[in-house]
């Protein structure tokens, strides 16, 4: 590729503007110049986030047809539908950076893109609907609220909408667990088992400790990331502790303690080998999640082709009519 002098000069102007905007904690917009690595980082992060919403529909969709009351069924349908909506916003935000939805979908289906590892666990009971809402959405919110101020405009704005809905979902998850933990002994046990299944993986959602997280520093410098993984995990644990009490459920972390001196929560040891295995594709549901998505995509191919062909014909006949 040949780069002309004029282009180089333009790049330099752009970089200066970009640096100034970042320094002033203002927003970068799609038409602004931005460093390639900033663009790539955002494409990766936003599309991963979108994929997580889409794959994240599966563990909960699994219970739509079996929800134990009509009210819960309606709430669950609305929630999973919201996740599809979040996926749409986020794909749209990523598209402003020059990647198409088809390309992102292909990356996901072919296993070339990541999504949040948390969704590689199964949901064997209804109580998992509560645990996902309370813990997984709770952890997501801790991660995502700071992203509402992310330096890239479309991403930040998408996150504002998403966070509003997520906190609603989290409350609903808490409610599900509350009903169960105040219900029959069997229901309470179901709630405890689900919390036992999801608690540790939720803590892992914040990622490894900061010293083991190589990309964090650059993302912080670019105002994409605002807090360290450990800081966010702290905040989450602190939020959970009183809620465990309200639920009357036990926290699976028997070593958890509050350090008065530093004012922080010290968690028991997190099993990072487990995290690495699931991230590497060896979790309980990695294969199932991708198969489900691929099958939905393949089964729908004829429908998408028909819609495209119909649109083409309509377009042609309109042109003829003019």
């Amino acid at each position, binding site marked *: 590729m040949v780069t002309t002098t004029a282009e180089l000069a333009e790049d330099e102007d752009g970089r200066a503007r970009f640096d100034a905007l970042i320094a002033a904690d203002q927003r970068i917009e799609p038409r602004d110049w931005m460093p390639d690595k900033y663009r790539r980082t955002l494409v990766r992060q936003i599309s991963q986030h979108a994929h997580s919403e889409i794959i994240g529909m599966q563990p909960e969709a699994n219970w739509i047809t079996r929800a134990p*009351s009509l009210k819960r069924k309606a709430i669950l349908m609305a929630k999973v539908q919201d996740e*599809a909506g979040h996926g749409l916003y986020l794909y749209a935000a990523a598209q402003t950076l020059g990647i198409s939805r088809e390309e992102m979908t292909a990356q996901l289906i072919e296993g070339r893109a990541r999504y949040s590892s948390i969704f590689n666990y199964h949901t064997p009971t209804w109580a998992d609907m509560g645990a996902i809402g309370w813990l997984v959405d709770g952890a997501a919110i801790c991660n995502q609220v700071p992203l509402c101020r992310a330096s890239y405009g479309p991403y930040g704005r998408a996150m504002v909408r998403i966070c509003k809905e997520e906190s609603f979902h989290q409350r609903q998850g808490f409610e599900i667990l509350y009903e169960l933990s105040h219900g029959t002994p069997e229901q309470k046990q179901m709630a405890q088992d689900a919390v036992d299944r999801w608690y540790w993986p939720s803590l892992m959602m914040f990622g490894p400790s900061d010293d083991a997280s190589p990309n964090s520093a650059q993302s912080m410098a670019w105002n994409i990331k605002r807090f360290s993984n450990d800081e966010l995990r702290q905040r989450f644990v602190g939020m959970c502790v009183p809620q465990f009490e309200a639920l009357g459920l036990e926290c699976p972390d028997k070593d958890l303690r509050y350090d008065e001196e530093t004012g922080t929560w010290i968690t028991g040891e997190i099993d990072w080998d487990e995290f690495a295995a699931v991230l590497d594709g060896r979790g309980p549901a990695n294969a199932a999640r991708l198969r489900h998505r691929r099958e*939905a995509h393949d089964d729908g191919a004829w429908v998408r082709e028909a819609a495209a062909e119909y649109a083409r014909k309509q377009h042609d006949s309109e042109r003829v009519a003019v």
Partner: protein
Amino acid sequence: TPPVAEYAMRLGDDALILSQQLGGWISRAPELEEDLALGNIALDLIGHARALLRYAGTASDRSEDDLAFWRDEPEFRSCWLVEQPNGHFGDTIARQFLFSAYQVELYQALATSTDPSLGAIAGKAEREVAYHLDHAAQWMLRLAGGTEESRGRITVSLGDLYPYVDELFEDDELTDRLAGVAPRPSSLRAGFDRTVASVLAEADLETPAVKPARGDGRRGGHTASMGYLLAEMQWLARRHPGATW
């Protein structure tokens, strides 16, 4: 009164069963926009179902959940059209198209019911089912006018679902007794036929030359799919008698 309750149950069961089926699409639709659209329709329908079943239950002091989760198959009053399996997307669209075309007529007529509860429910539902019809009709056009494959598929789907149309418009003793409260089903047929004919004409599809299936849903007779559907829907609730959720 018991006849009104029975009538509300028919409508509520239709909405419930169809919502249950559409709920099975979420996370599996051909594109994200359809996960949203089918989810929306399912949500509207479960809303109608809850209102109708709550109202139906007042006559026998049963809650919406008592009716949804604790009745056995012969106590359900849903029509056979809504019980037909999701199949592929074209099957679901054809089912939705026919059923929404019926519901548009139904709720329009029912909105002027002398029964204020039914009238209010219908009045609210009217706009929603008009959207469902529009969504399904758009897809009928796209699939019929898309590729050769899609045209072939939607033609077969329409033929597979059409035998279940007649049941929707059958009068019986109950609907005879409810003059003023509810429209006679047979009175809704002309409007339905007009809607369907106009969409099929635009889609260049023929009205299927198929024989009607003798549907028996209003008297509690159901097709093969219904048992599976109810077992799935009711399993968890029945596993925990007396529990609240």
